[in-house]
């Protein structure tokens, strides 16, 4: 699959060129290049301490880049969900009040955002009383309520349970489709991110590899960084089948044998997931080559239709 370049004629919302951030004599991240166009979802992945949050903060101007250039569209309106946010319990802050933290909003806008994230019933609850997942939804609601040009989400599904995670990723996709805003998503949650994102950038102090989810999952740098198991896990998550496509294109069968291609009788889709495995709203990401003959439907196929999952 080719690298998508859908909106290159429209000026990007933000673009980074050779950006590096240095703290106490140490480069947290260096040589970062990417841009986000309206309607584009860019996902940053990478191990802990690889500079994901630092890169996002440099992109929106919270951190100053020590080298390179960051250019933002004039008057860019950002909606930000930080990775860590703890409201001191001494501050009485309801979900409703949290919505207008950085700018005033109309009542209808607040209601719509709370409705979309499924926490309208919590509008009058104090944020300190919310569970981790509810609080993440409240933060997301706050960020989308202000109708930003660029939504920056730093691990937005942390602490959200499994079905909630699906619903939130679905919501993020819906937001992009309906508002056309650009989205910068930070995740360690490879398998789900893979599905909706346009460009994946894998960081490890520098850009280690980039491209569509498919190209990244096959890239040797990615596999070196996350280990070969990451590729396998990815394949497991995306194929609920009786065989697995290895990142190198070979096929691992249920009986443990490995062949260079699918067997003719493959295609029996087992229902049992590997332990710890989860399904997500992802299209099938095939890690084998284009000539696979296993007979599966490899086309993009979102697992859930939009708008039907917000009750989750």
């Amino acid at each position: 699959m080719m690298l998508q370049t859908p909106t290159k004629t429209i000026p990007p919302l933000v673009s980074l060129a050779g950006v590096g951030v240095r703290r106490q004599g140490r480069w947290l991240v260096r040589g970062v290049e990417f841009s986000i166009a309206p309607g584009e979802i860019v996902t940053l992945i990478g191990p802990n301490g690889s500079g994901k949050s630092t890169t996002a903060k440099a992109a929106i101007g919270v951190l100053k880049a020590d080298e390179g250039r960051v250019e933002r569209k004039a008057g860019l309106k950002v909606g930000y969900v930080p990775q860590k946010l703890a409201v001191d319990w001494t501050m009485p802050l309801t979900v409703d009040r949290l919505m207008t933290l950085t700018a005033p909003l109309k009542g209808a806008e607040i209601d719509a955002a709370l409705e979309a994230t499924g926490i309208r019933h919590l509008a009058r609850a104090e944020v300190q009383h919310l569970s981790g997942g509810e609080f993440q939804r409240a933060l997301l609601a706050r960020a989308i309520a202000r109708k930003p040009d660029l939504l920056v989400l730093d691990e937005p599904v942390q602490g959200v349970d499994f079905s909630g995670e699906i619903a939130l990723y679905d919501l993020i996709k819906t937001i992009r489709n309906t508002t056309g805003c650009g989205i910068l998503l930070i995740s360690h949650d490879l398998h789900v991110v893979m599905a909706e994102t346009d460009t994946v950038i894998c960081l490890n102090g520098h850009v280690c590899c980039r491209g569509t989810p498919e190209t990244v999952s096959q890239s040797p740098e990615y596999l070196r960084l996350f280990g070969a198991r990451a590729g396998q896990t990815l394949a497991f998550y995306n194929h609920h089948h009786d065989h697995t496509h290895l990142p190198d294109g070979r096929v691992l069968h249920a009986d443990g044998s490995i062949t260079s291609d699918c067997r003719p009788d493959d295609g029996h889709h087992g229902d049992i997931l590997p332990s710890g495995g989860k399904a997500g709203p992802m299209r099938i990401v095939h890690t084998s080559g284009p000539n696979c003959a296993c007979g599966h439907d490899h086309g993009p196929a979102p697992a859930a239709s939009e708008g039907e999952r917000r009750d989750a």
Partner: protein
Amino acid sequence: MLDDFFLRALVAGVGLALTTGPLGCFVVWRRMAYFGDTMAHSALLGVALSLLMSFNLLLSVFAVAATVSILLLLLQKRGTLSTDALLGILSHATLAIGLVIVSFMTWVRIDLVGFLFGDILAVSRADVDLVWGGGILVLFAIVWMWRPLIASTVNPELAEAEGLQPERARLAFMLLMALVIAISMKIVGILLITSLLIIPAATARRFSTSPEVMAVLASLIGALAVIGGLFGSLKFDTPSGPSIVVAALGLFILSLLTRPRTGGAEHPAASQKGPA
């Protein structure tokens, strides 16, 4: 009308309490109680320098408190010592230097106790004007900067990302603190200023549904404490500054006895824990 010393004390004290209410909320929210203490202690250095150089007392105290807060910001950025250690050093160093300088100046007669514990019954008409003028200025600034102040208290990076300037809000907050300390020194004294910031805010927390409500309630509770403390001081012949603090403490204890407002009433899984 303001001929009576007791009436002057009441008007000045209430004016101060109205000012310290909202400011004290930020001190509590930002967990800066000890920081407030440090700035207040540095006021004595301001007093000493003012006497030494025959400079305006108010401006001198304000300048020293502001300098100490900016010094702390710079030291924090270097990040070699923890904030509470830095505060401990600055707090007691400035107090001690102030005391040492005062002891050198044998030619000035200085009412040290008056500065440390305040002498609200001695406030002049000019002091009343100063408290109300300064107080209105502080309240106006807080209202004007309310949203950036609240947003940067919740999360400075979020505020920065969404176009508010948290650094500016923080600096403004420090200058307002310095100003309030300068104008309140004569009323409750250097050692007790922070109690008038913190106790009313802490009392208001239990009855508040929003930051705005808490700020207003803290002002009213502070005013009530001033009135109660002053009448108590008159009745029992106790020092006025400490009496105000004791009255504030009394209100706080009363608030603990009332049923807490259940903010998460609609939420069955409400717990005492904050979000992770």
